[in-house]
């Protein structure tokens, strides 16, 4: 009786397997599978959500307009938690799923190791948010990005600090991760070039809660301006703990602060915090209907949402023009032509970096961020 049940069960399972086998075969011919991957869970999940929302909306809009090459797009979502090891595992997973294009990853520390997988497997990758220069500096032909680079970002930050905060005591602190350290070093380079000397440098350990020791060091060195290379959670905690110890030091950071979660952590204490980010694509009137669409879902298209959207637009347009999804043909298109996206008309240089506007400064005020006014 028992043995019989098991054999029936295994027969059913075999049929099930066969069915799913057929299914994936038919879907392969009707769909083009693309993917986005980033920190969908964990500490940086707020950026993962931006990517997921942007990607889902892009796929929906492109499919509604007839798809790509007469086929519908199908989106796969990978979760790398900004962990370099997991990023490689996710990349391999995506290869197995037959992904033709990757709109990811987010953290530079994840994108760099994952790109190696996409390069060898001949899959096109456009990162919406990885700004570490190394990503496109290794001569990998399949690797592109629609965001800026930290050497540009650091240069803008360094110049701004040198111009606006003359004679102030300046510190640079980072959390040792690929993005953070890259950004901090590029900023220091530019500050040095401008003849600004630093009063203090230091590092912190990410994912901790207590940064009071480094805050006291800032206080001892009478720091006026703290340039922080790192992500919003630690930056928020540092701001809180600075105010608690009576410091009025202004925090200046990069594009990893463009999320409402920063303000959730700091509350009013975050007032006046500065950050660099690309010109806000939401301000473009042509994008207004799309931004409204996001708003209708109860989501503000902040940070990298529209960058992920744009990366998928680039893929769709390149595939149409190339008449196929082969990586070699796609990259020919990417290098040779311009694309009409929610970020405006963009193209790519020989390295794979976007030829779009650089960085501007934003300021946190009243729970929202806008261009700096001073």
């Amino acid at each position, binding site marked *: 009786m028992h043995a019989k049940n098991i054999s029936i069960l295994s027969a059913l399972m075999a049929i099930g397997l066969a069915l799913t086998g057929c299914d994936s075969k038919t879907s392969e011919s009707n769909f083009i599978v693309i993917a986005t991957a980033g920190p*969908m*869970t*964990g*500490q940086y*999940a*707020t950026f993962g*959500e931006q990517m997921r929302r942007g990607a889902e909306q892009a796929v929906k809009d492109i499919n509604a307009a007839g798809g790509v090459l007469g086929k519908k797009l199908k989106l796969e979502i990978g979760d790398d938690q900004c962990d370099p090891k997991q990023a490689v595992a996710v990349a391999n997973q995506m290869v197995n799923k037959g992904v033709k294009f990757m709109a990811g990853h987010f953290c530079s520390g994840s994108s760099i190791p994952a790109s190696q997988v996409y390069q060898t497997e001949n899959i096109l990758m456009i990162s919406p948010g990885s700004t570490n220069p190394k990503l496109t500096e290794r001569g990998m032909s399949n690797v592109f990005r629609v965001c800026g680079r930290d050497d540009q970002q650091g240069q803008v930050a360094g110049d701004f600090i040198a111009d606006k905060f003359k004679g102030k005591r300046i510190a640079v602190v980072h959390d*040792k991760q690929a993005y953070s350290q890259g950004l901090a070093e590029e900023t220091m380079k530019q500050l040095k070039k401008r003849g600004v000397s630093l009063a203090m440098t*230091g*590092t*912190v*350990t990410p*994912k*901790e*809660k*207590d940064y*009071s*020791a*480094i805050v*006291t*060091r800032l*206080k*001892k060195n*009478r720091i006026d301006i703290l340039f922080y290379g790192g992500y919003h*959670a630690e930056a*928020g*905690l540092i701001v*809180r703990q600075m*105010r*608690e*110890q*009576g410091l009025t030091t202004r925090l200046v950071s990069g594009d990893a602060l463009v999320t409402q*979660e920063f303000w*959730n*952590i*700091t*509350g*009013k*204490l975050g007032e006046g915090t500065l950050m660099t980010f690309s010109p806000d694509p939401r301000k473009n009137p042509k994008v207004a209907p799309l931004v409204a669409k996001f708003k209708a879902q109860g989501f503000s298209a902040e940070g990298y949402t529209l960058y992920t959207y744009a990366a998928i637009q680039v893929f769709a347009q390149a595939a149409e023009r190339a008449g196929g999804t082969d990586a070699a043909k796609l990259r020919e298109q990417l290098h040779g032509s311009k694309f009409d996206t929610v970020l405006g008309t963009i193209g790519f240089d020989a390295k794979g970096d976007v030829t779009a506007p650089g960085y501007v400064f934003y300021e946190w005020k009243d729970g929202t961020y806008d261009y700096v006014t001073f």
Partner: protein
Amino acid sequence: MEYFLQQLINGLTLGAVYGLIAIGYTMVYGIIGMINFAHGEIYMIGSFIALICFSILGLSGVASVPLAILVVLLVTVLFTAAYGWAVERLAYRPLRGSFRLAPLISAIGMSIFLQNYVQLLQGARVKAMAPMVTGGFVVTERAGFQVTLSYMQIIIMALTLILMAGFSQLISRTALGRAQRACEQDQKMAALSGIDVDRTVSLTFLLGAGLAAVAGVMTTLHYGVIDFFIGFLVGLKAFTAAVLGGIGSLPGAMLGGILIGLVEAFWAAYFAAEYKDVAAFSILVLVLVFRPTGLLGQPEVEKV
């Protein structure tokens, strides 16, 4: 000097939180000789319950901050203690008397279970709460360097002191304390002389979880950023603190917690901050090499 004083305050605050959690490890070890690896998760659950309570109070328009903190402390301690009790009842009691590794593995399983449970229920994203208690005193000031002591730091240290004092009284003066000490020495003999061992162990778990809940409330209030994974690192540090102070010893756990907090703060203050965990654990190794029972631990007497 002022710099030293400020770092001392930083380290003591951090250490107080570690100490509160370490007591939970040390009490459980003292009484049933097992390491409750799920204790860090109990602390994490405490901080989540605190956050939920604060949100509910905020929504229902409770304006008085001291009242809110008091209510949240009570509710959180109650609920978290219930979790601590349930963990013992479900995962450890059925295994009591089986081989030594069984409850240990069960504890690790419980820790993973609780992490995933909170992740599924509350989502994997970081939860934040804007600062509630702000401001503080300037203790001294020299050459523009102010030594500050925030209200929050005072609350944490005062609460820890009160709880510590209360607990040493409880252990040395009350019937429950006497029962706990009896169970610690010899469970079978304690049972023979009329002590309800199961009840005593249950109460120990309740108390340990209650202290972890206080630490959770303080974390939510002071740092304001929590996620389902915070129990792991803090639990590890608190466990280290318990071993450093001498596992099984209540004052040892507190001392260990404060030492770990101070080492972290001072190492980050005077040396490279990235090596502060290395420093803390190196000290643990050194202490264990020269004093295997920890700083205040009693060497185990061989029973004949």
